[in-house]
């Protein structure tokens, strides 16, 4: 039976990995059709020359960086507060935000922003996207940091307090340094989900805040374009490095 199982596993892993592998291979194809005509970097050159892609990439980076800093800070503090004493409504809200379909979160935020704009003179833009990303990333950060806190020995903090540290000092000098691998791993996670998000972003982005996934979506919709293969391959490799780094940190 185990031979059949291994054989099956090969097939299942092929199903999970071949589509992206094939995409990557054909991003180096010199032809614009799906017949292999030789190795070439044409589509990478085209991707780098595309100013729209360039601007969208910069936008995505800025949004992901801002969302990462804000969500990691708020989420880490939140996990710490919940570790001291739980809060039913915060845990429930986080859990709900995690299981709510993306499309529902997207339209709820859109409705909220529109409603706000009636009273405040602001428009959809980078800030609305960043806030949206911070919101849906919070639960990820709390989950990762809370998992680390579960194995953290509270007596270390008590010792610091007994020795005259204030509570904040105990947090910053004793607890936080030991949470750092989990915090960095959470930050990487936020960066990935923020950089990658399409559904929510496309609903709350303004004209000046088009992100990379939005441009890729538009290109994919318009028809076949090997440039999308090239840029997709770069994203998969880039995110892949971050994912593996994050997994390593969490295992520590």
């Amino acid at each position, binding site marked *: 039976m185990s031979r059949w*199982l291994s054989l*099956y596993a090969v097939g*299942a892993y092929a199903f999970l990995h071949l*589509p992206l592998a*094939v995409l990557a291979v054909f991003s180096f194809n010199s032809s614009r059709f799906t017949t292999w005509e030789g190795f070439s970097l044409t589509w990478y050159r085209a991707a780098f020359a595309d100013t729209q892609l360039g601007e969208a990439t910069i936008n995505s980076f800025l949004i992901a960086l801002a969302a990462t800093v804000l969500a990691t800070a708020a989420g880490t*503090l939140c996990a710490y507060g919940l570790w001291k004493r739980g809060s039913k409504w915060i845990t429930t809200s986080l859990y709900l935000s995690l299981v709510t379909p993306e499309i529902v979160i997207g339209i709820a935020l859109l*409705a909220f922003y529109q409603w706000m704009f009636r009273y405040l003179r602001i428009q959809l833009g980078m800030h609305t996207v960043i806030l949206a990303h911070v919101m849906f990333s919070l639960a990820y950060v709390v989950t990762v940091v809370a998992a680390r806190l579960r194995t953290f020995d509270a007596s270390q903090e008590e010792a610091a307090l007994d020795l005259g540290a204030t509570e904040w000092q105990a947090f910053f000098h004793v607890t936080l340094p030991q949470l750092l691998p989990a915090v960095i791993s959470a930050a990487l996670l936020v960066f990935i989900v923020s950089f990658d998000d399409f559904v929510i972003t496309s609903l709350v982005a303004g004209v000046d805040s088009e992100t990379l996934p939005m441009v890729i979506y538009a290109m994919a919709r318009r028809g076949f374009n090997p440039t999308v293969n090239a840029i997709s391959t770069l994203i998969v490799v880039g995110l892949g490095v971050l994912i593996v780094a994050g*997994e390593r940190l969490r295992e520590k």
Partner: protein
Amino acid sequence: MSRVRTWALAPAGGLLILLFLIPMAIVTSYSWMTRGPYGGVAAPLTWENYARLFDPLYFSILIRSLVYAGIATGICVLMGFPLALFISRSGGRKNFYLGLVIVPFWTSFLVRTYAWMFLLRDTGLINTALQALGVIGEPLPLLYNPFAVMVGLVYGYLPFMVLPIFSTLERLDRSLLEAAADLGARPLDALFRITVPLCKPGILAGSVLVYISCLGAYLTPDLLGGGKTIMIGNLVQNQFTTARDWPFGAALSLILMLAVMALLLPLVRRGNEGLL
């Protein structure tokens, strides 16, 4: 003691109130309103938006979403269980094989969906290869149909099935299998009469996760499906963009949200919240 806790919870609590609870409350209130003259919402309160869910046109989309999610979940159980079994029996390379399931899962969902467009389109790799081999004359219509949507859903959410099943397999008492073998059970008998029944909690948890993910799917039916395969998520998006019927879109969102919560309830009750 509680001072620090209050300040630590304040930023996240504030963000959740402002950007999650209030927006959801707004959507809830919109679902009882009437469509305004310019596409906004207007005052007269009504249940009509909920009644419209039973309009055959929309009802068929709701039913389709439930059915598609069900089929995709079934396929994920059939594909995910043996894969989880393989990983749990792979000895020292367990983490590596588990990683092979997790890594593509975190990679860009959009790119992964696009990869299937690349494979399935008329001039895509599968059709080009089959034509070159002379198996088919005309390209097979692989994209923009229920088949493509199903492939995309299974591909996208299979890891949700593998992970919970794997973790129940890991907790399985191996001596039960040894006892079965000693008493003369063949490996397949032991698998179906011991392993599978004991993995029920994992299979259930995985099924709920896959089912709710499929139910809320937007990108997969949008890119891989055609006009005849749209699901609730697409209908919601459509009401908030092109159709500009926010109250109806809000009612649809709430139904979707309630369905997801109802499905999760048994898992939460079991204390199997998994992530939080």
